[in-house]
């Protein structure tokens, strides 16, 4: 979303933004934390709830619009992107937030996501990735691990998982960020950046489904292991993690990023690649890693938005509909 909307900064609180509706996720679900962060984000951004629309598909994640005191449309499975596109084309000043699960976005809705990001509609897209189908009670999703045992894969999943980041970057996305549900402050920060991005601000949120896939990100987010598994990207700063003890350098032989320990094997902080969020190649390398997960804004580039082009292109209104009805050749019957 661009930050150029002319709506006045509204003085609402996060409480004003919470819809008067009982939240129906399972107790302990990661969705609660995300809801909290979103409410804080829209509050901090001072958005106008009457100009804001949350649009979702179907799934636990997609219940989201009911809980925000703005416009909301809980649509059908996998198609939120299409409805958001229509809403945005029809009313470009609308602040559109798409909320969708990994099944909704990457299984049934994969094609619409591809086309949404390549067209670069100016909206925020929040992917709640819990690596499972929550609402339908726990089947494997396209992001489920190889070997994951679920009721539909009793002997373990044999489908190679898709990386949301690799997929959207390959499809031409102009913004890709990743955050775990538990990182409240960063989540708010990243969502603000996604909102300020002119184009599709795609945010993958690692979300814990406590009922059907509890602990899927336990290692990534666990206190002890998190430093070794999360690398927070900052523009212009070296790609370091583990409290600065480790980094990623480019190895021309491997033709890829490889991890190193600062001070070991002759590698120093200066060997770490400096993060350039505008570089899609770098982002692709970062997004593909399973060992250390790039967090924060991994990629962001300027590009025209479809809604922008669409409206710029729209010819000046002609009033002469009567002439159009007549066309170029008429004759008169007396």
């Amino acid at each position, binding site marked *: 979303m661009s930050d150029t909307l002319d709506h006045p900064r509204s003085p609402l609180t996060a409480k004003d933004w919470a*819809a008067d*509706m009982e939240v129906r996720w399972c107790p302990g679900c990661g969705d609660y934390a995300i809801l909290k962060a979103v409410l804080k984000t829209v509050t901090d951004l001072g958005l106008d*709830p*009457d*100009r804001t*629309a949350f*649009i979702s598909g*179907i799934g636990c994640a997609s219940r989201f*619009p*009911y809980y925000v*005191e*703005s*416009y*909301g*449309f*809980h*649509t*059908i499975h996998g*198609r939120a*992107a*299409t*409805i*958001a*596109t*229509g*809403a*945005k*084309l*029809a*009313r470009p*000043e*609308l602040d559109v937030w798409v909320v969708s699960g990994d099944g909704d976005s990457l299984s049934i809705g994969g*094609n*619409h996501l*591809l*086309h949404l990001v390549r067209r670069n509609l100016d909206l925020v897209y929040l992917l709640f990735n819990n690596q499972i189908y929550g609402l339908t009670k726990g089947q494997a999703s396209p992001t489920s691990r190889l070997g994951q045992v679920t009721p539909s894969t009793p002997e373990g999943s044999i489908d190679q998982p898709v990386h949301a980041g690799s997929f959207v970057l390959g499809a031409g996305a102009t913004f890709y960020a990743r955050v775990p549900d538990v990182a409240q402050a960063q989540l708010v920060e990243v969502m603000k950046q996604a909102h300020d991005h002119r184009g599709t601000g795609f945010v993958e949120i690692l979300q814990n489904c406590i009922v059907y896939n509890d602990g899927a990100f336990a290692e990534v987010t666990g206190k002890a292991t998190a430093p070794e598994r999360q690398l927070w990207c900052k523009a212009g700063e070296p790609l370091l993690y583990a409290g600065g003890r480790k980094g990623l350098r480019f190895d021309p032989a491997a033709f890829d990023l490889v991890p190193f320990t600062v001070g070991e094997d002759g590698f120093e902080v200066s060997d770490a690649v400096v993060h350039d969020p505008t570089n899609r190649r770098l982002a692709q390398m970062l997004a593909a890693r399973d060992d250390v997960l790039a967090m924060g804004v991994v990629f962001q580039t300027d590009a025209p938005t479809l809604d922008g082009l*669409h409206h710029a*292109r*729209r*010819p*000046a*209104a*002609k009033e002469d*509909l*009567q002439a*159009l*009805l*007549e*066309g170029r*050749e*008429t*004759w*008169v*019957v*007396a």
Partner: protein
Amino acid sequence: MNAEHGTARALVVRFAGDSGDGIQVTGGRYSAAAALTGADLATFPDFPAEIRAPAGTTYGVSAYQVQLGRDLVRTAGDLVDVLVALNPAALKVNLEEMQPGGVIILDQSAFTERNLKKAGYAVDPSTDGSLAGFRVVALDIQKLTQAAVKEAGVSAREAARSRNFWTLGLILWLTGGDVAATRSWIERRFEQDIAAANRLALEAGHAFGETAELGRIEPILGVAGSPLPPGRYRSINGADALCLGLVTGAKLAGLELLYGSYPITPATSMLHTLAKLGAYGCDVFQAEDEIAAIGVALGASYAGKLGVTGTSGPGMALKTEMLGLAIAAELPLVVVNAQRGGPSTGLPTKTEQSDLFQATLGRNADAPLPVVAASSPGDAFDCAIEAIRIAVTHMTPVILLTDGYLANASEPWRVPELESLPPITRPDPAGRSPYQHDPETLSRPWIPAGTKGGRHRIGGLERADGSGAVSYDPANHQRMTELRQARVQKIADFLPRVVLEVGEPGDDLLLLGWGSTKGAMAQAAAELRAEGLKVAHLHLRHLAPFAHDLEALLASFGRVLACEMNMGQLAFLLRGHYGRPVAALTKVSGRPFQVREIKQRARQELTGALGAVA
């Protein structure tokens, strides 16, 4: 001159040749010239499925048929009075629809051994006597054209391309016309050299008719007077008329329009037409598939434009789920289905009316919606406006049915005066809850996303009547299901009484139709009536809900025969609604009804030769 179509003041001309021969242009220009003389007319363009089918093959034949008349013309004609066949394949494919004694104009240059073989002729039909029953004019049009255009200085290939204008000139002469209008059109349309060549060919063809003393077949173009009511006319095909109707309807409702579509034959022409109408409040979005196309349209309606989507059978299938959401969400939406032959990919370029079941009943759950069908190119304009009126005043998706034949067929159309069209008044949502149903229409107010002070949440889960909250309450679902049905039924309160096209209530037989069969049915009924038979014709625009007075009217007839280009879908629906017999005359050959087919079956019905239920 065609006795079968009941008037001596009409003529059926069919141009046929390879897809590359410019047949559609020739036919279109001939029709335009005829229209300018005040003739009424109806056309039937019929082209192959292949983009560039190999030259000379039967499946590559492109044809354009026009009936023109000094009395009202209702169809493109059953049998052909004058056939122009630019190659053997064109002759082969069209011969069986020739009027006995009709005129056949052949380009001899194309009757080579190779072409004859490609068309499946063992011997040359123009020489073996098999055309004995016709008046054959065999000319080396190729050579005549090349000679005529020499001075334009174009290449031999370009010169050969002017053959269709030579033919057009000849036909204009043979039917009493002149070349003035076509000449100026050529001048406007083509670049210098090509324009010159085409003009020279046109004039030479016309002059040839005169100098070769072929004898005018029928000077119908030279006859004065017009059967049409006075006014300003243009020629229009169904696809264009429908698009103009959409743009006009949106304007009448004070809305902008967003047309989301994915290319598919024969709906694509609407996409092409609307893509050029950005200046008239029409945004066009070519989506990644039909699901996205309807999603984008629904999203537009959600945000306050009028969402429209257009497609054909296979694409309709894909839109089914989203239609359910539009029904549940109670949002306006217009879905145009340009029907084609099926099932599956079927016959993409052939016409059929077989998506009626799908339109009326083809969704999961009890999911009623209104269905409107256009019956002629001009009617497509009115139906588009009607579909928009229903969508925005009753807050519902509307399916508007047209078909491949209607999309391409054209007729003279009296250009409507915008000011004379009644505006579409949308109910004022101010002060109403987005979930509150108006007692008169049972519709909720339309409060587009972004409206100041109107924020609310909607979705596809069942909602509590009144409050709009998600509800799994059994009694509420019962109530909401009944409300959805009643809401569509309510539309009938706002419909005009049904009016017979031909005949009187209580006649012995009612021919009941919908869609593009109207012309043939009205003609058949009129001709049968002229024979003294008590046959009436009723053509339905509203297929869901049916008008309140339809049931009583149907009951007044001795027999009811639904005529449809499908296996009897309307007949089934009428029986389903009213629990009384309705017979069906069906045709699924990919071609429109002929008047004689309807007349024949009607006679059988009247003599009781067939059972009542098809």
